[in-house]
């Protein structure tokens, strides 16, 4: 047996950093498409203090997909939830508007269950290619709460 504790400690610190990184880029708040269209430099602030810039072209494309009154209901960036270990991802949909936008972008109908529209990796690639800055990854909170429970079990 050899003393591998320093290595283990270093690796654990590294992993803690990884977990911190996961959702650090999430926006503090989502903004309405209509508001973003009016801004000169459309952006949102992230949890880690950085800013996330939206491309005007993408906003224009999204605006062309929906009616003018619907632009006041679409919140951006849209969040793509990832549950580790599962093949499918989910786009968080608050209403029918998000569902409509996603199905128009993908060119196929999407079903929404429990406010989540399930998509698979090939569709994810298409969605991210078209909506690079208006979508954002979100690592499911389930896994993080489970992780916290296991890391600090109740005494």
């Amino acid at each position: 047996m050899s003393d591998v504790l320093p290595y283990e400690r270093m690796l654990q610190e590294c992993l803690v950093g990884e977990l911190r990184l996961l959702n650090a880029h999430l926006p503090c708040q989502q903004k309405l498409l209509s508001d973003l269209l009016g801004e000169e430099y459309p952006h949102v602030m992230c949890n880690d203090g950085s800013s996330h810039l939206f491309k005007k072209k993408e906003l224009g494309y999204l605006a062309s997909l929906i009616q003018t009154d619907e632009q006041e209901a679409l919140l951006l960036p849209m969040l793509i939830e990832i549950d580790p270990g599962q093949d499918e991802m989910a786009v968080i949909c608050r209403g029918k508007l998000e569902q409509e936008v996603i199905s128009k972008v993908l060119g196929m109908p999407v079903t929404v269950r429990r406010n989540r529209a399930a998509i698979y990796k090939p569709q994810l690639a298409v969605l991210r290619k078209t909506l690079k800055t208006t979508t954002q990854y979100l690592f499911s909170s389930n896994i993080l709460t489970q992780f916290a429970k296991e890391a600090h079990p109740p005494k």
Partner: protein
Amino acid sequence: MPQQLIKVRPTKIELIRLRRRLSLAKRIQKIVKDRLSIMTVEFMNLAREAVEAKRKLLTDFSEAYKALSIAAGYHGYIALEKELIASERKLEIVTGSRSVAGARIPSFELRQPERPMPEYDLADTSSWVDRATQLFRECLEASVELAEVQRGLELLGREISRTKRIVNALEYVTIPRLQGTIKYLNMKFEERDREEKSRLKRVKVLLEQR
């Protein structure tokens, strides 16, 4: 290569702790692997975009230079240069960043008016110059797009290799080491049980002999 074991006291508490650490390590491995797969998907997307952007840039530049040479042939180099020197314009590029599963990559956007008025004298120039200007404007857009994609590729590639190292460390070092230590402790406990049993048997035999 002999497997290294973690130096722990052979107690049940340590075994429980190790088991907890193993399940934690497996869970983290899942998360990091998922992050890696997402970054790989994004990297492939970016690589495809880079190829397209490069092809577009080359086509745009070749067309633009053709148009410029026609315009130069029509007006003459000196006259064309005189017109174009006065038409310099500042470029407005909006820069920002976006995050792809924790990796920050830059985002550039060239801001141009939708129908820009040319700064040169329209009365003294022909439509050849207009065409060349229009094509070079497209070249600028393509260059900015390519710059964004290439820088993104570089940064994402670096992040992927870093994450891959973590996944490998977990898969080939940490998890096997934890599993090995748990196995070693289990064997030790079984050995202890067997020793205990044989000791009891021996005691029983001695008591019967009395």
